[in-house]
């Protein structure tokens, strides 16, 4: 496996971990229960709701960074030859 390939795989693993971490923070019962409170409120919204929406937006940021990394690395310029006619 080439060094470039290893590098891109490692970075992809980091992005997957970061996105899964946001999911973990919203679903793992002890953390989820810690955040499951009304106060502090923001724009009237309970903290529980702000917590989930914020983490979803954070995950969106990670998706964007991952995409930019893949785009910059040329990983999205796949050339696929069609095998045969049906």
């Amino acid at each position, binding site marked *: 496996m080439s060094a*470039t390939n290893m590098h891109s795989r490692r970075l992809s693993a980091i992005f*997957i971990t970061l996105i899964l971490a946001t999911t973990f923070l919203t679903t793992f019962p002890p953390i989820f229960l810690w955040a499951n409170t009304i106060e502090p409120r923001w724009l*009237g919204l309970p903290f529980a709701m702000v917590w989930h929406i914020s*983490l979803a937006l954070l995950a969106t940021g990670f998706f964007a960074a991952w995409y930019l990394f893949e785009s910059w690395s040329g990983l*999205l310029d796949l050339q696929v030859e069609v095998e045969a006619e049906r």
Partner: protein
Amino acid sequence: MIPVLSLLAFLGLILFINRRQLGVSTMADYATANHSIGVLGITFGFLATWYVGAGYTVFSGFAVNFGMIGVYVIPYGIITLLVMYLVAEKTFIWGKKYQLRTQSELLGLRYRSDFIRVLTGVAGVALSVPWLLMEWYTIGYVFNYATEGFISPLLGMIIGIFVVVFYVAMGGMRSVVMANIVQGLYMMVVGSAVLIYVLYSELGGLSAAMDRLFYEAPKAMTFPGPGWDVSPNYWTAIIITSGLGGFMWPWVYNKLFAADSIRTIKQSVLFAPVLGVLSFALLFIVSIALHPLPFAQENPEEALFLVHAQAGVWPLALFAVLVMAASLGTVSGILNAMSTAISGDIAQVMNRKITEKTALLIARWSVVVMSLGALVGAYLKEGQLVFMALMTYQGMIVLSPVVLLGLYWRRANKFGAVAGFLMGMVVSFGLTLTEPAFIQTYGWTPGVYGFLTTLIIMLVTGYLRPVESHVDALWGDIAEARGQTRDVTATRIS
């Protein structure tokens, strides 16, 4: 009069924008639009298919009743998009190289098994039926409500069926995606605007609505909500089952085969979560804000309609079109995926002599027959539709190990996939139907047990048997495509 004219105008618009897409003449074009759809089509294709019309009735009713728990849709959406991002590359490469049209065909290729292709094809069709029925019912309900009973639910369903069947049968994936763009844009722009308008005109704005909730029903602001005692594991379970199952629906997954490039798919993963999170959050904030109001408590599933009707005839008309757009987007995606599966994954596998022309004819007639069958089912069984639709998620999550391990683990084999899928379904639906006490007390939904059953069987059989001989060639295809990627990069640098 204005609401019904708005609904008819929207249906007319869908037919008008599709007038040039109706001449599809090959099965490949019908099923995948010849891999030609760009980022706008894929993004809104996902959103319009994913957003069900019942989200504005049944699911918003759930949030009206129980408050904050409705927000589970937001983290579940992130898991679904991660699954989409992960499966995109290999699905695209094999899909394009071998001219695949459906998720089941992909699994048939990966596991080199016609049996698993037919099995997952049949399962995909069967599990989609309740959603099709529920969305037909929603379309009939929208017409009935918007006309104050003048148009019966049955007549409303017939009007909706006539339009959808026409453009799906004649235009296939191209028509579905073209309609999805209009439906998705409407849902995001007009739909969000009308929800914000109602939030401020009828509920006094975000802060005032939340203050009312805080003083009158503070329990609705946290999990699990008022009048409900459930384990926190339930929260974890519904997010994971919905998140992993959400992208396994053939009508969502098949959009990957329509994309023109891997870049298109991944760009759509960038746009879809932002649009999805913002609009889902808005829908559920309005629904939760309705919780303290007596009329909403009496009719939670009608609450959004009632508050829009209070706001005036135009908000009601725009909202009715919003629900109609969401329903049409889902129904058209389901019909396209089901008809492709019946024709390609079942008929053509059982009889290899079926030509592409005949396959297209079978797909088109499948759309007509399924729609008429669903019309009867939706009209007769509306009371059980919600229960059946939610139950299907317990089956869909069982497919996720078959897809994900198949794409990422060389050792995954057809024996594990078939045995795991069947046993997982038995466990999942067995627990759903028998409802043993531990399901309620521990909080995990039946789908989690089904998922774990499938996963364990696939892992065990994967280590018990050698790697199947055809797998190296498939992995070679991926390496080859990536290798050519490196060449592109090198050329760009030089």
